[in-house]
């Protein structure tokens, strides 16, 4: 009963991790392309990452 929930949470965490990784890599590419927009990109990146992180935590605490 416990194990499927843990596995599910693990899957969600993997997904969230990949998502945040994608955001980070895209943000870095964007910064490399437009260094003058670094501030805006960082803000947007943090917000997006924070939202995904929220899902990850929700999954962890739902177990």
């Amino acid at each position, binding site marked *: 009963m416990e194990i499927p929930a843990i596995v599910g949470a693990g899957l969600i965490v993997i997904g969230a991790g990949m998502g945040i990784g994608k955001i980070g890599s895209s943000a870095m590419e964007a910064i490399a392309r437009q260094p003058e927009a670094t*501030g805006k990109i960082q*803000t947007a990146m*943090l*917000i997006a990452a*924070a*939202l995904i*992180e*929220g*899902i990850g*935590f*929700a999954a*962890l*605490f739902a177990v």
Partner: protein
Amino acid sequence: MLRTIYAFLITVFLNIPTAIFADNHQEPAHQKDSTITHNEAHEHEAAEAHHDAHGAHAEHGELDLKARIKADIKHHLQDSYDFHLFSYTGSDGKEHHVGFPLPVILIDGGLHIFMSSAFRHGEKVVESKGNYYILHHNKIYKTDAKGTIEYDEHHHVLNPKPLDFSITKNVFMIIVIMSIIFIMFKNMASSYQKNGGLPTGIGRFLEPIILFIRDDIAIPNIGEKHYKRYMSYLLTVFFFVWVVNLFGLTPLGVNITNNIAVTFCLAILTYLITTFTANKYYWKHIFWMPGVPAPMKVVLAPIELLGTFIKPFSLMIRLYANITAGHIVLMSILGLMFVFANWIGSSLSFILAFVLSILELLVAALQAYIFTMLSALYFGTAVEEHHDDHH
């Protein structure tokens, strides 16, 4: 800035001896009141393991140490009714604890106020205005004169809990930290008058942060027109969360933001401010999304409404989980130092703990920043003036 970081690092590492050995005699098991029934074999309760550990002190050394570390981590994360500063082993071989009791305030058919020292760390049943209370695993339960505690089959305590408004360690530290913040900023504000519009002392360090919150968080997210209304909340929440997180890294062993009640309070304030300052466009976007066909509007309304609750919920969970996870990891690695108990392993875990402490310093500021940033973002959506055609 650098000096502050060094100061905190030093305090963090002064913490090592006390953090591991501190306060693990909260419940002297071998002298426990005989009427309290225990399920000795229960393994889910770390505190139980800790209790077991004391029972079997000499027999299995390593198990004992691991259990003690586990219990310590759990204890570190918990709130408590007295303020424990440090422990030491005296010349007589006994452990002495240095700290002070805090007032317990219960509402249970009347107001009950007494000092937490009356519990004697759970050994004694406290009688107050005809009611009996006992401290069990750091929680106060209502009991009878003998201090009976009843369990169900899952080892959950069945005794009722009184409504508890005690000044616990966390409440005490909240008061202390808020006083520090208040005095700091009040002095900073008056230094502007004295020095002709320029801050002195710590104000020189704090002013750029205030300006950062104004120029990089509030104005871009909320807009020039409305940001002034939210500045007080944003600044207060940022400095409160930051200072509280930093205090969590000191040897005082307080971690206020890893209480869900505290982060819930902050999140609900963000939610309430968003809701009560929102303009009609905000509500229109939630209940009758412009620019989509009518059936979609019906479908979107509950989703959008749910979204308004999920936003503060994620704020609450994020702060709580980040700080809790950070503390657990840091404490575990500090514990590893004593599990290895050799030069290589212990040095490695010391270095790891050092690096992690620096990371935690970053996380302390980052979480405060993200909380403030997202709050500002939500306020921004609440006061944004949309035109119906876009979106």
